[in-house]
């Protein structure tokens, strides 16, 4: 840790002792959230999320492809994340690094494990032809908590996704005019807690992320079940903090669900 981060860590810790944060938020308070749907006309679905100054755009493309051999009766979901080089002075162009791979896989797990997409309805010809749903996360500005912002944008974009209708004529798939909604069953919400000293905070922004010991993210489905978890960072959690974070995530997800009307 550099001298500056050490000083900052101390300042943040002192504020947390008084239940306060650098940006004046409460410990369990999210930053202001803005959600815009359908901003990319070329994509079958899209969403833009602003979480404080963190900005993420997700575009959905739906294409025809082959199913995996072990799930012949299910469509395919693929999630990818791009940390666009202008999103942070520390980002560099190049193939996805471990951070963007982790981000994509955590977003993927929330969607996949909650069974959000009714993948059985995406089958055109069992074992041969299915719809493949590409979820591409583009981080445009990094100001902390990419996981929550990206998961929110991905779920919002999926619920805004329309795919073209089709019919099968003499074994050939023909696209018809008109669109239908991507078949969805759930709307998972992901909440991340960071640990600084012995305090847990929700939605850490960049200054807090830099000094945090560790973070833990929970994806919560419509019935308050936990469907994915990821711990990250160089520090550890005490078992009691793990359970506390899970309870916080459950409550915050409920609160957000009400706000988003999901």
């Amino acid at each position, binding site marked *: 840790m550099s001298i500056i981060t050490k000083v900052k860590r101390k300042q943040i810790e002192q504020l947390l002792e008084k239940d306060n944060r650098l940006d004046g938020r409460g410990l369990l308070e999210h930053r202001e959230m803005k959600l815009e749907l359908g901003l990319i006309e070329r994509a079958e679905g899209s969403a833009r999320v602003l979480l404080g100054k963190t900005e993420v755009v997700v575009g959905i493309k739906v294409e025809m492809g082959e199913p995996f051999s072990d799930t012949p009766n299910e469509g395919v979901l693929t999630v990818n994340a791009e940390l666009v080089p202008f999103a942070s002075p520390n980002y560099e162009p190049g193939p996805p690094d471990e951070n963007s791979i982790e981000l994509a896989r955590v977003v993927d797990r929330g969607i996949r494990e909650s069974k959000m997409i009714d993948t059985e309805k995406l089958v055109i010809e069992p074992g041969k032809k299915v719809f493949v749903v590409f979820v591409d996360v583009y981080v445009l500005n990094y100001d902390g908590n990419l996981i929550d912002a990206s998961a929110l944008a991905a779920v919002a974009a999926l619920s805004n996704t329309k795919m073209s209708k089709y019919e099968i004529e003499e074994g050939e798939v023909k696209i018809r005019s008109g669109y239908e909604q991507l078949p969805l069953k759930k709307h998972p919400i992901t909440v991340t807690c960071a640990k600084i000293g012995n305090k847990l905070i929700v939605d850490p922004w960049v200054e807090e992320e830099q000094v945090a010991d560790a973070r833990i993210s929970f994806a919560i489905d419509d019935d308050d079940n*936990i469907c994915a978890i990821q*711990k990250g960072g160089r520090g*550890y*959690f*005490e078992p009691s903090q793990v*359970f506390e974070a*899970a309870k916080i995530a459950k409550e915050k997800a409920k609160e957000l669900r009400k706000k988003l009307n999901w």
Partner: protein
Amino acid sequence: MNEKPEKLIDKKGLRLDGRKPDELRPLKMEVGVISNANGSAYIEWGKNKVIAAVYGPREVHPKHLALQDRTVLKCRYHMASFSVQERKSPAPSRREIELSKVIRESLEPAIFMEYYPRTMIDVIIEVLQADGGTRCAGITAAALALADSGIPMRDLVAACAAGKIDNTVVLDLFDTEDKVGSADVPVAMMPNLNAVTLLQMDGILTYEEFEKAVNMAMDGCKTVYALQKEALKTKYVTTKGEEESKEEEVEE
């Protein structure tokens, strides 16, 4: 492709491999298996066979990665192409890159990183055979390899998973249970410090089931921990024993 079994737990409450819900698979650990490495360990965890080895602290490569206040920990988790049913491409998959990251973050809290500024420690984990729970086996072996290399540590890191199959929370899922079951919760911890250093989950669990699974996995970690210490002692005792017998020979 194998047929999916309909039931994972039979009428007697036993699992497909005959274990009780809270029973671990047989474990075998051996420390000091790669002579070139500074520390190494081999673990057999059910059908999992994993080797972990440590090089360092040594010079940082590439140089610009060096840190002024602590060492750099690098970790590579990799599965051999023949470790699974269908041949896996030896190129690192996205899964392996993610696991390398979370495994590194699970080991880092245990190491006194600040003792070796401007250096690098390499942890290399190779899965020779996989049967579910390879990240836990990898972490357990890597912690042994680190201890074997003599790098000062706050505690060993022990790992174990719990999960849910047939509506029951069970310990240490093997491959079929992981694939057919409804949730998997791998946990790594430093048992002596009561610190959780890795926690992941996929599947669907209520909060109550989650709490039960984490507690069960932590109990598993403690059992693994005892075996780790045993394995380290065994190596030390045999090495010491060999030296003593050599000394005796000289005396004669």
